[in-house]
């Protein structure tokens, strides 16, 4: 089993160069307010290739969900894009009329949200809800669509799919509802799935099952997944690459193993060390990060982390660029921890 897992990682990386790019976000800045006075995303760039799972990770207000909404073309009306470009399978999202965006959603990209009970229509049978993308985006007949829905429900682990597709969302448990959401996102065979905290509301044992299903079905189809989460444990579980956000900036981007073994940004490093580990000793204080997370659009000037950072200097009053410090490892910091220095 371990050998196989390593093989997959190695394969994934070498094949990764050749694989098509599914998503590219380039220099995206988004602001709120009449005069765009509250800038919530600063110059965000990231990309995903087919079959890749990229975790977009950060704490509340860091801009991870706003980035996801931008990709889906679902920014709230009070937010506006100041600069940047987003392409999904080569198609530009920014500035595209809603009529066209609707065509992309469901066919080019699928979405999974945190709370299935809110995302699903409570008054419509789940089979019909899953079928919606097929009705809109394909010319398949009713029988063919039904077969596809049943096959997919089976693939995501909903028992007895033929009968259960007639049921309403409330007749399913939380875990099953999340499986239905996954089926709904995948039915149009999108190249990209955006999953915003899809397991946060679930119990640990159910979470493990859902993460496995999501990984299996997307891997089998070569679907790229942008996985938004605040939980580093979940990141370790699902991600090939990790993009860390803080105060509306991307501050680090690296392979998952590197992110955990040699975090280069002091924030990533401190975040990983502030949670108890198996060798943490009871009664010995955890290395806490002082202060609190800035509100969206209210991040301090310069590096947004500098007021909480133990390495901060005068230089940190200017925002450092996101630069490659190690192979395939970008970091936006004037004083990156590059020599495996960590507390």
């Amino acid at each position, binding site marked *: 089993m371990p050998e196989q897992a390593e093989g997959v990682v190695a394969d994934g990386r070498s094949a990764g160069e050749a694989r098509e790019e599914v998503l590219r976000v380039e220099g995206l800045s988004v602001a709120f307010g009449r005069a765009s006075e509250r800038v919530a995303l600063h110059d965000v760039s990231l990309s995903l290739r087919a079959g890749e799972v990229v975790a977009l990770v950060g704490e509340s207000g860091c801009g991870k969900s706003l980035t996801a909404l931008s990709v889906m073309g679902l920014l709230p009306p009070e937010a506006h894009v100041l600069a940047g470009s987003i392409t999904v399978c080569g198609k530009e999202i920014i500035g595209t009329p809603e009529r066209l965006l609707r065509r992309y959603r469901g066919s080019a990209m699928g979405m999974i949200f945190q709370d299935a009970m809110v995302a699903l229509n409570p008054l419509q049978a789940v089979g019909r809800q899953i079928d919606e993308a097929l009705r809109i985006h394909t010319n398949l007949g009713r029988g063919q669509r039904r077969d596809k829905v049943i096959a997919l429900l089976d693939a995501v682990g909903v028992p007895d799919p033929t009968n259960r597709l007639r049921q309403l969302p409330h007749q399913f448990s939380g875990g099953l509802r999340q499986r239905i959401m996954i089926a709904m996102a995948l039915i149009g065979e999108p190249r990209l799935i955006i999953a915003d905290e899809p397991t946060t509301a679930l119990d640990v044992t159910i979470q493990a099952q859902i993460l496995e299903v999501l990984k299996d079905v997307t891997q089998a189809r070569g679907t790229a997944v942008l996985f938004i989460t605040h939980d580093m444990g979940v990141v370790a579980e699902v991600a090939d690459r990790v993009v860390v956000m803080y105060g509306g900036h991307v501050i680090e981007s690296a392979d998952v193993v590197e992110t955990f073994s040699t975090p280069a940004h002091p924030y990533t490093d401190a975040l990983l060390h*502030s949670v108890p580990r198996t060798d943490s000793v009871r009664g010995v*204080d955890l290395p806490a990060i002082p202060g609190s997370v800035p509100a969206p659009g209210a991040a301090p000037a310069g590096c947004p982390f500098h007021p909480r950072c133990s390495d901060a200097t005068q230089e940190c009053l200017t925002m450092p660029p996101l630069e490659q410090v190690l192979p395939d490892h970008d970091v936006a910091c004037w004083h990156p921890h590059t020599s495996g220095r960590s507390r």
Partner: protein
Amino acid sequence: MTSSTLSPVLLEAQDVRKVYRIRTPEGHRDLVAVNGLTLALRRGETYGLVGESGCGKSTVAKMLLNLEQPTSGEVTLDGRVITSLRGKEMREVRKDIQVIFQDPFAALNGRMSVFDLVAEPLRVHRSAQGKKLREEVLDLLDLVGLTEEMADRYPRQLSGGQRQRIAIARAIALRPSVIICDEPVSALDVSVQAQILNLMNRLQRELNLTYLFISHDLTLVRYMCERTSVMYLGDIVEDGTTAELFDNPRHPYTQVLLSASPVPIPQSQRPARVKPRGEIPSPLARPSGCPFRTRCPLAQQICAEEVPQLRTITPGHRAACHFAETADVRKLA
């Protein structure tokens, strides 16, 4: 460990059971929320209570706080039965047993200033007034790491971490001996959680507090608690010292829970997970025999027929499984 064995039992639940009568389309049914639970907190320790949603851990908290009457069994605080206390007597006991909830956004009245929020328990119990009240409130703010200028602010002007500090200040205002902490850091940003855990540990040392630490997060329990009970569908399925429970779990549910918990170690670098089958059954439809048998990868015929008793496996370590001596679901990974 030595200190916990030496200190006397402070808060104790004896064979506490809570059954709710539920009206369903098929008539009245019994929902067994807590199924005969025994728990003893020793003075000065942090005791962990772990389990997934619906396992009954919050019902246990309510019964310990006497906010909910057990159907049978009793709760004692310092040797005194508190389950039947009412009115004035109960108010006296309340001073001694306090609570911190998960969501500091919901737990604080948004129309009260920080000063009034922290002063409220002191006013209700008439334990301080006027200048002395002000001094005491400022002392409490200082104790939880907030400055005097915070006193005039309102909850909406504060971060989640600051709000939880205020909830803690309220809980310690009357110098209780026990605090029930129901998921005290789950709603907070990860970078803020450590601050609150450190604060809780410091206050425990300074004020000789006893904590019941209720959580679904095993890493937190491992770090915070000396002893831990694992609950499943209203039953304690395993308990013991935290170290023993994590290093040598004997109940398949504990083993599955440990294996399924996400840890910040990349997937390629840690052992494969054991996934439990299926989902948590409804407490209205408890399986016969062992409550975990419907999801247990090791279940046998006997597990459906006989309820396994919580029995001692090694001194101080109990498990309710017919195969506790040999059970190891990790071999199946």
